[in-house]
């Protein structure tokens, strides 16, 4: 009994210590925003890697999700003769929830893993130590550009994903469910509010911050060898995904329940 309690206590302490380390890492990253030098080249490279090159995966995810959503809402709505809500619910569902969450999760899978693997490999091959000896702060050179690029590019990715998702729903609505194209579009525009779009983009920014932060944190704290890098990569994706879902709930509470 005592040993079980001891083990539980150790696990809780270890978890709290991990949370503390992540918070300190996040605070350090944000602090560097205000302190030159800034590595613009690395920032623009990260923008391309994280933002531009994630567009196909986010777009495809949104497109198929929008289409499936239209079919589901039509089938569900038919139970109480409310098939007409398909355009508005697809739009609201995509913009408020599915666009940012699925976009965030797809970027977590694609970007958190690659950042953690890249930085983890740099750590085990002493490239991080080499940066320090060359008078370059790894937080400034590696972490800040990636976190900033993800935080700024995710809202744009989410907005583009929203539009593609709504378009997927539109195609299914018009071609499979016999909606009138003009009426579908009018319904979408009429029911969608600016706050819906903005809330989704704010969620995107938060998710972007989480994704890059987790990638960098786990990469910087990678263990030795191939196994250490593999573990860091896995931890980065799992932590980013869980934190995205948790943050999504909190942000939804903040935006839509007051």
């Amino acid at each position, binding site marked *: 009994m005592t040993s079980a309690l001891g083990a539980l206590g150790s696990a809780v302490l270890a978890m709290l210590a991990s949370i503390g380390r992540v918070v300190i890492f996040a605070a350090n990253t944000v602090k560097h925003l205000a302190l030159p*030098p800034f590595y613009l080249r690395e920032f623009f490279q990260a923008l391309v890697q994280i933002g531009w090159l994630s567009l196909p995966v986010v777009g495809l995810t949104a497109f198929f999700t929008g289409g499936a959503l239209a079919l589901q809402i039509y089938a569900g709505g038919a139970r109480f003769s409310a098939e007409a809500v398909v355009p508005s619910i697809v739009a609201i569902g995509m913009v408020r929830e599915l666009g940012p969450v699925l976009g965030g999760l797809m970027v977590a899978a694609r970007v958190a893993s690659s950042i953690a693997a890249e930085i983890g490999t740099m750590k085990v091959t*002493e*490239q991080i*130590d*080499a940066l*320090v*000896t*060359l*008078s*370059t702060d790894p937080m400034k050179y590696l972490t800040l550009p990636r976190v900033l690029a993800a935080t700024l590019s995710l809202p744009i990715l989410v907005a583009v994903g929203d539009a593609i998702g709504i378009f997927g729903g539109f195609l299914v609505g018009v071609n499979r469910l016999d909606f009138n194209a003009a009426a579908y579009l009018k319904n979408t525009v009429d029911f969608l509010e600016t706050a819906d779009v903005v809330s989704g983009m704010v969620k995107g920014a938060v998710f972007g911050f989480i994704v890059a932060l987790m990638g960098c944190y786990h990469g910087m704290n990678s263990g030795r060898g191939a196994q250490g890098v593999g573990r860091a990569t896995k931890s980065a994706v799992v932590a980013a995904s869980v934190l995205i879902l948790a943050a999504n709930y909190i942000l939804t509470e903040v935006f839509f329940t007051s």
Partner: protein
Amino acid sequence: MIELRGLHKSFGQNHVLAGVDLSIERGKSMVIIGGSGTGKSVLLKSILGLITPDRGQILVDGQDVTQADRDAFLARFGMLFQGGALFDSLPVWQNIAFRLMRGSLKRPKDEARDIAIEKLRRVGLKPDVADRFPAELSGGMQKRVSLARAIAADPEIIFFDEPTTGLDPIMSGVINDLIREIVVDMGATAMTITHDMTSVRTIADDIAMLHAGRIQWTGPVGDMDQSGDPYIDQFINGRADGPIEAIR
């Protein structure tokens, strides 16, 4: 020029450095020898501030390194890492000129590239290597590029961490000769860690042997063979029997 006083560092129960005292004179080439896992790399990384010692003092030109301006302090150093530690994402010339394109030593891109190519020549590589990526080079070429990066900003102090590990004997000889030449030409203070005795005899002015967390013996390389110290005798002759346990 570099003075270590009572340096201690532990990792958990493992006391890697247990009171290291050592002096390295300006312009001299000091080689630290010792078995695997005796803390040679920890010692070197402690001086550079990559590892924080638990106790003790590190003085460079009489100044405590913890009090020094970090940027100015690191600008005096060059370091050749064991595995090269070249940045995969940058072409060779940008690796070499990394320090010259950023921070207090920043200069125009063309000038930085010219210096990188001159340093490439210095380590025996042709300018056409400049635009290749580290992954496209052999192990020996990577080591040379890493050496070129270490000397790019003409540092006063150069550290070499196991410079010949993983190289064939001929390439090891080439790297050893290059290191010796560069250190003499530049008049730099050098500190090398290795367990390759050919490196020791080529590179060193002085040697120090690290054992059980302390300096076991230190002196000019010429005195090494007649040191009378059983530890150093066993090490330089590669004997399994002696005071150093073969299985650690």
